[in-house]
């Protein structure tokens, strides 16, 4: 059976032209379509987006004549862009801190030989299995200011505490962070839990023998050792903050664009108002924001894998 297989495998190269009999060339040829597809659909497209941002294309018909920085000037002077930048900061701060703090806390608790660990783990990660669109839909209903969660709060006796949630004209973005963290904090929990489980028991035991209590153990042993996980979590949640699009698309941009994001602004300018140049400028801006976040991370991961 085996010799038959290898005979068949041998016969295949014999059928190919001579220049293709070299396995290394075959390998490159197999990879070539993917390289071309990624090069075109990711890198050339990004360059193209950059070019569109300096073109005159601001109506449905294609116009790729050079416009200089016109779209960029328009972008920088657009009050909605300023609000979106403020929103990005609000969202990133709220979303990243919730994901990382909750994710770490839950992982640390689950690591304590908890009964029903599988149940808790499954529940914590379940929102990650559904679309962000589903999250936005369900939470919009829960955050209706006149009812929803506020009814529960009132029933607990805090009748005067009635947050406006995503309808808040200034802080609506913070309500949106809850919807994001609902989906992603479980993911961060899974990252930390895997990280905690990878720490050898001897290390923990040695620290305990040295007299370290739980808090000291975390402060001096676990948290420093989990730094790579924290790095991963920061990059993933940071990239998620920049690309945020689904929730404002479902919930709307709120009063005075309080829940608008760069991603949604780009979408509306481009595909609703046909201001392609302006949309491309927003998209380019988003790319430029992402690069310093992602690049150091990938380089450090790569360096580690080489070792």
């Amino acid at each position, binding site marked *: 059976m085996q010799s038959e297989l290898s005979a068949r495998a*041998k016969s295949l190269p014999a059928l190919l032209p001579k220049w293709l009999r070299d396995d290394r060339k075959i390998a490159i040829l197999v*990879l070539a379509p993917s390289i071309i597809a*990624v090069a075109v659909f990711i890198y050339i497209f990004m360059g193209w987006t950059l070019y569109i941002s300096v073109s005159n294309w601001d109506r449905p018909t294609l116009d790729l004549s050079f416009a200089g920085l016109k779209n960029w000037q328009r972008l920088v002077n657009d009050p909605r862009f300023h609000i979106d930048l403020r929103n990005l900061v609000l969202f990133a701060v709220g979303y990243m801190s919730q994901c990382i703090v909750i994710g770490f806390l839950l992982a640390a608790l689950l690591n304590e030989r908890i009964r029903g660990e599988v149940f808790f783990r499954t529940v914590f990660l379940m929102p990650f299995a559904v679309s962000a669109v589903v999250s936005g839909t369900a939470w919009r209903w829960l955050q209706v200011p006149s009812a929803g969660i506020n009814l529960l709060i009132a029933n607990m006796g805090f009748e005067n505490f009635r947050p406006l949630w995503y309808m808040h004209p200034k802080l609506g973005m913070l309500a949106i962070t809850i919807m994001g963290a609902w989906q992603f904090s479980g993911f961060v929990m899974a990252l930390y839990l895997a990280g905690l489980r990878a720490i050898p028991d001897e290390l923990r035991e040695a620290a305990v023998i040295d007299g370290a209590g739980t808090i000291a153990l975390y402060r001096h042993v676990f948290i420093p050792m989990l730094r790579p996980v924290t790095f*991963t979590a920061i990059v993933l949640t940071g990239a998620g903050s920049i690309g945020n699009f689904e929730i404002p698309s479902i919930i709307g941009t709120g009063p005075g664009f309080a829940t608008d994001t760069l991603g949604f602004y780009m979408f509306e300018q481009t595909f609703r108002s046909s201001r392609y140049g302006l949309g491309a400028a927003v998209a380019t801006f988003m790319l430029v924001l992402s690069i310093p976040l992602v690049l150091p991370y990938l380089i450090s991961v790569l360096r580690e894998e080489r070792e």
Partner: protein
Amino acid sequence: MSWHRLLAGSTKYAVLIAFAAFYLVPFYVMILTGLKPLEDISSFEIWNMPKSLDFGSFREAWNQMDTNFWNSVRITIPGAIVSTFLGSLNGYVFAKWGFRGSNWILFLFVFGMFLPGQGILIPLVWVLQFMGLYGKVNGLIMAYCIFGIPITSLLFYRYYASVPDELVDASKIDGCGFFGIYRRIILPLSGPTFAVVGVWQCTRIWNEYLMALVVLGNPARAPVTVAIKNFSSMGVIPWNLQMAAALIASVPTIAVYLLLGKLFMRGLLEGSLSG
């Protein structure tokens, strides 16, 4: 057991249970609201149990979105199969047939994966229009296949890198070539990784929204994620239909997650580069 250990123990469980409630409440409210008929829907009764079991909202939502549901199936399955298979071949090349610069290519693949999708949307629409695939299911499938290449290649690369080179070298001595080794050595070892990557791609494609909205905005051709959006932009918001639709759209991915949670978890850890 001293009293403060008892206290610490019960605090742990109290925190865990509180968070479990936080993660479950949206699902609970979706089910509760989906089981009520429209005339019983009022935001003031959001927490009340339905007066009787009424599946009318689910039926109605299903009738309005069944086309979209099947569209999603038609998009997800080929998209996941093609991108998984491509990832396997690419990962094999990267791991076992590395050439000068192949590490850089893999790096560029992964780098592109972390960048926001908005950066490529306008040219994507332009090219799909040019190819006659804009607004067509096949156009979206093609996009998912291409944008899936980085993650699938990475996942397979990381697995194949752990396959000992001696195995490959031994079959080279046996006279096997590139495809012979793939078929005899690599593929038989890849079953679990195919499952992990397949599950991951299915979930990602099923839940994707931005590209679907841009490429397939047409309500009749759109996948489920866009259908949910269309429910929510109706004049008067029919909460019961929206919740029912959101639940129906989530059933396949939740089922996959509950049944194949381990595979899902592995995809998550490997894909975030921390597995």
